[in-house]
């Protein structure tokens, strides 16, 4: 456990710059997002909540060139980019947890995703605990917390004028080993602070039988009602830190095979060449999004595929709130139609 004076964090980041590409939240226009840091970057931790654009893009960029190709020969020319070691400073616990959830998809043994793995292996994640969670945050409800350490190499907790740093892995330890060690008093202060913040976050929906319940109401009218005002845009899924669907497209103008984020909320996502669409309306698509996060993820790894970051709630253009949707689902009287 180390202590860093807030005023000195710039010096320590400057020191890392020759070894790492450092990424940290900075203001880009009106809102903050993860951008590369140089010596004069002004970091932005003023907002208590997350960056608007999810840091999953650090590992799974929204658009990524997979390979260049020679069209005439119909052969790949490779072109996977070299990744310099990366230090990601100030990632919130929900987003860090999301990247460890996504590891179960991309960092697999026999058919791992080389693009994801290269970036993950090169990265050190220093998290910033949330001392002031938003009213749209619900990490504690879905098994995380404002000081959750999943996926992190070190966790920073703000303690007055100082940063209290808890190193969690060797990678993290190496970063901070030169700093002064926190006193016992400070350790206690942090523990009190953390449990106070955590305690103040009430669960916002019941998760105990949620999966079973959602499976039960799969064929019910519930989905009609919640999807009625949905626009079918990609805001919730693109900004979601755990949504990982992508599309592979050949950009013929530049002879590159590119992968782009994609979303189950778009009609063309599941449109088949034959014209058949298994999810023809917004109802099925909304259902897929919610079922995937709150049911299918549980089948796969036993954890909910949502980290409670609250972005989908904050930025939905029609004010749909997944917490309310799930509360409605829990209250929805299943008519015993279990389809499938």
């Amino acid at each position: 456990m180390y202590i860093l004076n807030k005023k000195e964090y710039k010096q320590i980041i400057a020191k890392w710059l020759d070894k790492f590409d450092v990424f940290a939240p900075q203001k880009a226009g009106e809102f903050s997002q993860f951008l590369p840091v140089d010596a004069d970057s002004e970091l932005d931790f003023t907002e208590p909540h997350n960056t608007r654009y999810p840091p999953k893009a650090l590992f799974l960029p929204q658009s990524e060139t997979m390979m260049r190709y020679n069209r005439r020969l119909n052969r790949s020319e490779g072109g996977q980019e070299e990744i310099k070691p990366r230090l990601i400073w100030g990632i919130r616990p929900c987003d860090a947890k999301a990247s460890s959830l996504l590891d179960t998809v991309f960092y697999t043994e026999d058919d791992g995703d080389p693009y994801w793995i290269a970036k993950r292996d090169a990265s050190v994640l220093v998290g910033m605990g949330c001392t002031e969670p938003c009213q749209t945050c619900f990490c504690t409800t879905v098994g995380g917390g404002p000081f959750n350490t999943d996926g992190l190499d070190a966790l920073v907790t703000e303690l007055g004028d100082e940063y209290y740093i808890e190193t969690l892995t060797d990678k993290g330890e190496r970063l901070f080993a030169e700093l002064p060690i926190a006193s016992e008093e400070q350790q206690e202060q942090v523990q009190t602070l953390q449990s106070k913040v955590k305690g103040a976050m009430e669960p916002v929906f019941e998760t105990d039988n949620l999966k079973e319940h959602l499976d039960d109401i799969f064929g019910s009218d519930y989905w009609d009602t919640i999807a009625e005002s949905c626009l079918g845009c990609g805001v919730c899924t693109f900004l979601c830190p755990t949504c990982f669907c992508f599309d592979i497209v050949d950009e013929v103008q530049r002879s590159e095979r590119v992968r782009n984020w994609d979303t189950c909320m778009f009609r063309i996502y599941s449109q088949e060449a034959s014209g058949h669409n298994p999810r023809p309306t917004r109802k099925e698509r909304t259902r897929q999004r919610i079922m995937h996060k709150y049911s299918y993820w549980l089948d796969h790894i036993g954890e909910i595929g949502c980290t409670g970051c609250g972005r989908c709630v904050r930025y939905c253009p029609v004010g749909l709130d997944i917490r309310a949707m799930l509360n409605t689902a829990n209250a929805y009287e299943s008519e015993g139609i279990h389809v499938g």
Partner: protein
Amino acid sequence: MSGNIPNPYEPIPMRILRAYYESNDRSLKTFELSFDNHKDCDEFFSKYNPGQFCQLSIFGKGEAPFGIASAAWEGNFVRFTVQKVGTFTEYIHTLQAGDALGMRGPLGNGFPLTEWKRKNLVIIGGGCAFSTLYALTKHIQHPQNRPEIEELIVIYGARNSGLCMYKHDIESWYQEEDIQLHQAIDVPEDGWFHHVGYVPDVVKEVAPSPDNAVAVVCGPPIMTKYTLPTLVELGFAPETIFTSLEKRMKCGLGKCGRCNIGSKYICKDGPVFSMAELQELPDDI
């Protein structure tokens, strides 16, 4: 370490060895692809199991999944039969022997052959989806593999005789003793001496015994939909009926999320599922 990981998105360089039309109306074309590199070839066949599929890849056009229609013992090539349905397949149809293309695979689970050991096997196929079943039959026909399966019944239906695939080879199966072949077309035709009618009806007519038997069904969705209940009527348990699903896919590795149904990814956990497994899945197909 990242440089050393094999990139599953990188297509294997392949070349067309032979290409020929399979049906009279030229809507089906078969391609036999050979490997540019020996290493890829060895690796492919060390993993291949009938029922699996590959992503054929043409730079500038994209990728699309196709079931493998050849057995490993047939030679160092991979066979696909492509039906012309969209822009991608239309382009593939223009390719000829010697043309280069990419392939990723084998992908998916394939048929659970070890599970079927010492059982009677009923193969039921319709249309161009018969391709993977052809691979399965070819695989079993090899003298080394034949003892693994007891009785072998093949029921194959097409819309008309002109659409029957792998004609010459399949016709020769009538001569073989250890294979019971039933071919069918939808409407009567001059010179057709086999079954006439839809596949579910032919299955009813043939009435294979469910004792110590498993059935595999591959065909257009409408055929599968009616054949499965027919088999159940005949006494097959849902655990002994298998089918292969199709869905829009991109990565073929269970990562891009597109072919997700319930907790399964068709490309990785499938495409072969037992009917019992399908009943567990939500109605999202």
